[in-house]
């Protein structure tokens, strides 16, 4: 199972790199947001892998378990608690971003980042 542990860390790193790649090179804004959300998922996967105990048990104590055996074999539950919060925050951030995209699409009629989120400081200064 040790191979699995290391491979999971590599997978998490791969997801983060996919996210950073899509942040720079993808033009469509919805796909860019999807890509960036992979960074969050990679980080979550990494933190869950921290708490993993090879050949261990789920960190829920059942009646009839010996506490000493449980403490030696259970996975570390603190990272799991962190990831729970992180997942929900990620989803809400994504929802807000998509809502802003929907509003902006009505104004621009395109999903291209180069058009939608270009430099606006010049236009607004001398228009009024």
């Amino acid at each position: 199972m040790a191979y699995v542990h290391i491979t999971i860390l590599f997978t998490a790193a791969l997801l983060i790199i996919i996210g950073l790649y899509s942040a720079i090179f993808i033009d469509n804004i919805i796909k860019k947001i999807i890509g960036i959300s992979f960074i969050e998922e990679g980080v979550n996967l990494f933190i869950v892998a921290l708490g993993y105990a090879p050949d261990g048990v789920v960190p829920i104590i059942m009646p009839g378990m010996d506490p000493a055996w449980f403490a030696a074999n259970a996975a570390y539950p603190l990272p799991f608690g962190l990831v729970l919060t992180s997942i929900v925050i990620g989803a809400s951030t994504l929802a807000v971003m998509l809502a802003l995209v929907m509003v902006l699409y009505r104004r621009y009629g395109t999903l291209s980042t180069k058009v939608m989120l270009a430099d606006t400081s010049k236009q607004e200064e001398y228009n009024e």
Partner: protein
Amino acid sequence: MNELIPLMVIVPLMAGLLISAFSKFNKATKIFAFVVAICLPIIPLASNYGLHYFGGYEPIMDNVTNVMFHPAITYSFTFLQQIFIGMIGILTFLVVFIYLTKYKEVSGPYLFLLFLGTAAVTAMLLTDDIFHMFVFFEILALAQVGIVAASSIDYSYEMALKYMILGSIGSPIMLLGIGFLLALTGSVNVTDIAYAVHNGLVNITSPVFLLSLGLIFFGWLYASGLPPFHTIKSGIYSKAEPHGAALLQSFTVISMISIVLIMFRIYSVLPIFEVLVVFFSILAMILGVSLALTQTDFRRMIGFLAVGELGFIGLGIGLGTPYAITAGLFQALNEIIITALLFIGFGAIVNATNEVDTRKLGGLLAYHPKVSIMLLIGGLAMAGVPPLSGFQSKLMLVQASLSCGYPEISILAIMVSIATFVVFVKTFYTMFLRPKPNDLEVEGKDVPRAMVFAMGILLIIIVLLGIFPDIVIKGISTFVGGIL
């Protein structure tokens, strides 16, 4: 156990939720928001110093290794937290007051966002738990985006979306750094991590520890708007309503110092930490001020100046001596007040003329003498003219860098102050002193009374801190002696 400490976070959070839920009743909402806003600065002043363990789980002594560890989320409340939370409370009160008097129909969600941001920064300052801080950091980012998007200024949605996309890179990277620390120490409590690092339980030369510094540092750059995030930070200031911008910059300053203090407690054993902080602070000072000199939109200009001033705070922390850190924290306190004054003052001008381009303004001294005099004093305080509060903290910083053996940094700090002064004099001349352009209409429009009142209160604080800096410096230096 001090029961008032968690109330500092819970009161604004619950008040925001209630206001958002019952915003139909306009009058009741207004009164309720006003009462809560008055309570915000009073709670920290009435509270005693101490620690609060959530759930009542006291620290446990491990008998095998003789190490104390903290199972609960801990809030620690000292003089530093008191003064900063009190200041944020006063600022929130003024901003809410301006907002309530400006509009007949108040929007519940907007007030919710203001209170949510205040609760988030308060929790970030109080907490001793690095993941707890991260959660409130994310909540703060959402609140900031909401405040920007709620403004009626052109292109505010675009700026909010840009800020969110950059944030969704910055925050997970910071979480990754926290994960690295968790992997090394098995804890998220800052006191425990700092104990493990300073007592040799963690190999401080290992690449994992160094990389965790780099990743959390990147998140800090995003939180505080140092380069490469200075453009977006100044952008969101200029796209928010003026009173919102005054609160936004205080959120930035507080999140900056709360994260950097946590980083300082953990990473002060690594010399590279100080090098990194000083490098990015100098970069922020140079870029912020030189870009502020070329702006024509005065809101954007104040935004860049605010970013440049953040460099001074970073400089104080990066030099690493107790005196320098005290100077940096004092500078942070001054910056919150001064920049809020400038944002509210320039917002009053926008309110009166509907114009943000300095090239189209002029001759406003005759129309709004009160606002212009207060703005002048605020600008002088930011540039560091005695006897105002900016002078005291900048003098302390220059002395600190001289006594550390870095005269170049002192010269640079003085040069940045002079350039700030130039920016301010230039803007003041173009907006207030030179003859009024013919197509500018100012008659009949008045500055809201609440804005003048808020500026007056902030100005009193600036002058008081400038003449009697010792009331703050003593307490801050005691706090700094505690964390070193």
